[in-house]
């Protein structure tokens, strides 16, 4: 796939999704389809798909213990082991995973390799990817949690607290959520680096651009609803509460923007189990990270370990007995 095709196919796909929702609701008045059926189907695909994928991964054996060791091993008692980067216990490995999942530890190591005249290789700090990935994921998470206000009545106080923190630096009315800006900013950065760094552009597939456009679409439609085109919030909450209580209601006058937003979110959920977004679950199963490096102390069992053909010592001695004898090497059998 050429860059142009990958980029445009993805962008057009997302625009098409928007168009579908718009025509479906404004033109065909399929409010129930877009406001209830599709979200239900999407969530079902998401849940079933995730479980299926995870169970499938988990059911595949882990024949060898292959952690990537990024710190000092446990050896002699006076040599300081790096218990997190090179864990020798399950607990150590669990802590390593916490660092990976919550702080993107490995990505933090990132650096840029540069070839200067001389020739001289140099290594420059390159934390932008890490920062943007972190900003993106945390704002995504917080936005997701903030959305709980639509599904729980009364709104739980932790959610309210989060909203308060998130809008602490008030600059506008209505309150601007920092995470909204962060999400859009970070996704834009991730997108731009794909477009402008030649290597990134070379490796990127439609499946890399599509989720970025989709999330950007979700962010923008969400922002438009909140800051620019007032939607009927009371009506929306009626709809979401209906969804969560399995008695879907479609109130009048919600506005097509909401349906577009909801359709994009539904697409994201339904797309999730089939895509690279599964890294969310996969990272927990990664065998180079989630197990201890204690193979020499504790035997790891490979369930499909099978006997193999070897060249035994007896065969070896048979092959070279004369030579060995002449050289005075000890023998099991004298001729």
């Amino acid at each position, binding site marked *: 796939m050429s860059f142009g095709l990958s980029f445009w196919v993805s962008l057009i796909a997302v625009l098409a999704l928007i168009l579908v929702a718009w025509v479906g609701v404004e033109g065909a008045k399929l409010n129930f389809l877009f406001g209830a059926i599709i979200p239900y189907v999407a969530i079902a695909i998401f849940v079933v798909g995730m479980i299926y994928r995870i169970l499938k991964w988990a059911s595949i054996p*882990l024949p060898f213990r292959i952690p990537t060791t990024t710190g000092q091993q446990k050896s002699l008692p006076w*040599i300081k082991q790096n218990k997190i980067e090179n864990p020798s216990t399950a607990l150590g490995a669990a802590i390593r995973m916490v660092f990976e999942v919550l702080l993107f530890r490995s990505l933090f190591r990132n650096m840029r*390799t540069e*070839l200067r005249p001389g020739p*001289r*290789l140099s290594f420059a700090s390159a934390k932008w*990817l890490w920062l943007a990935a972190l900003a993106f994921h945390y704002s995504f998470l917080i936005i997701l949690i903030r959305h709980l206000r639509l599904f729980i009545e009364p709104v739980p106080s932790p959610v309210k607290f989060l909203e308060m923190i998130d809008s602490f630096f008030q600059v506008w009315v209505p309150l601007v959520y920092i995470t909204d800006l962060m999400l859009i900013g970070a996704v834009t950065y991730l997108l731009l680096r794909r477009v402008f760094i030649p290597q990134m552009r070379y490796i990127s597939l439609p499946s890399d651009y599509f989720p970025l456009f989709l999330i950007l679409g979700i962010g923008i439609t969400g922002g438009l609803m909140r800051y620019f085109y007032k939607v009927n919030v009371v009506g929306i909450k009626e709809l979401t509460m209906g969804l969560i209580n399995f008695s879907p209601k479609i109130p009048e006058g919600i506005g097509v923007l909401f349906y577009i937003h909801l359709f994009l979110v539904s697409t994201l959920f339904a797309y999730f189990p089939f895509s690279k977004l599964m*890294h969310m679950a996969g990272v927990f199963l990664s065998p180079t990270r989630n197990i201890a490096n204690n193979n020499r*102390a504790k035997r790891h069992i490979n369930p499909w370990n099978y006997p193999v053909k070897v060249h035994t010592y007896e065969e070896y001695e048979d092959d070279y007995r004369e030579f060995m004898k002449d*050289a005075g090497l000890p023998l099991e059998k004298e001729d």
Partner: protein
Amino acid sequence: MAEVEKKEEREVPYYETVLGASPEKLATVDYKPPAKPWMDVPPKFKKLDYLNPAKVKWMKVIDLPFPREWSPPDEDWKLPENWKEIFLNGMEDRLKRFRSFQLFMDICVRCGACADKCQFFIGGGDPKNMPVLRAELLRSIYRRYFTTSGKILGKIAGARELTVDVIKELFKYSFQCTECRRCSVFCPYGIDMAEITMIARELLLLLGMHVNWAIEPVGKSFLTGNHMGLLPHTIKDFMDEYRDELEKITGFKVDVPMNRKGAEILYIVPSGDFFDERGVILTIATLLYFYHIGLDYTWSTYTSEGGNFGLFTSHEMIKRLNAKMYAEAKRLKVKWILGGECGHMWRVINQYMGTVNGPADFLEEPVSPITGTKFENAKDTKMVHIAEFTADLIRHGKLKLDPSRNDHVIATYHDSCNPSRAMGLFEEPRYIIKNVCNNFYEMPESCIREKTFCCGGGAGLGTDEQLETLLRGNFPRSNATKHVHEKFGVNRLLCMCAIDRAVLSMGLSYWCPQVTVGGVHELLANALVIPGESPRTVDLRRQPLKRPITPGKIAGKEA
């Protein structure tokens, strides 16, 4: 000047002549990817820059399928008739047997963090040597045949047909990866290209394709116990020669226990230690060292190879070759096994041996006979790394050392990829070096320890058949060496790996010929103060010392 150095200086024009390119020219790398999408760029095999295919003879020795004569530049690779089916079935089978493989096919986000971490990309600029793209070569096939979206959407889902060109491409790039795992350190999900390359090579092997630089050593190792095919009496002759050389240099006449039953410890080294010039010095050093501490040990001709090119061939072959270690330990009735300075050997011991050939319940949990230290970390496989063993001795004050005897050496240390990223052996060798050598300077932090570069010749790539690729892959390591050479006057690159000793020497002869390569225990043996020693003016490689050794004196003063 010592012999070793003179010879290496002669090699500079040699590689330059072969390549027709100076280091400056070769290091002008164009990182701009081609205009064509990567799927449309067919693989090319440049003259004198590919690895030769495995020879029929050696394929047969180890029962590999479809042995045949072919060559990468040929149009026709003489693939078996149902090659596609074999390949895809092999892939399906491995997706079910290796969680790593299935997961690594599924979760890459193509964030590119790994892209500029591979020495082959850094030194060569070919985008298919970016780990992420190297993986995509196979992942695109995975998508096409094993995912619904790939089957339906094809190219849009990043999928492509399996064609002969794809096979050729996989062959090319599977042998431009040294399975060094550097990429995996930086990947947010720990995706390990080494794992994918290992599987890709297994798949190629199903079609009877591999490189001779790996398969011949595997075959020889299977038959004779070592990669070089050294026969038992030859090894014995060599060892006698090294014993005599040691006597000539130091005056000590030592025993060389071979295939000796009832020894306490079986000592296993990479076979390079029997013939490679730097390895041989390491062997001489070891003879002196073990003699000095009075170790009850034996060498073995049947396990005259610590290395295991099975690791570069297939998981099955790892097991077939590794089996000898335990078998020989059992036959000789030793208590435990000590392993020498080798790289990938230690990946096999640390990550595979116990699993594939354990449990070694006929051995005892390793205990140092000199200090009584229990090697708890090796209590299951019963195999201890020589650096762990030596560091323990030094720590307990069991060795009298005079680091000034190495004052003619200004050292830096290269962490070999396997003991670094598949074991975590960082401090033990450094502890030894700091105790035996006064001049030790680290290379920059971003290219040592877990971030170390590969020598460029691991995993069956360490031959000048593919000279340009080798030198390019070696460039990052040699360049960092050059940096400390210029800054601190470093003249010795220490390492603990036989492939390193050979390949770093090749690479440095081109990129930085002022620096020689050697093992850590060579310096240890140089620094040993041994009762009854005689005066001498040279070190174990017969290089002149800064200050002649006066018996019993440390740094010129009474001990």
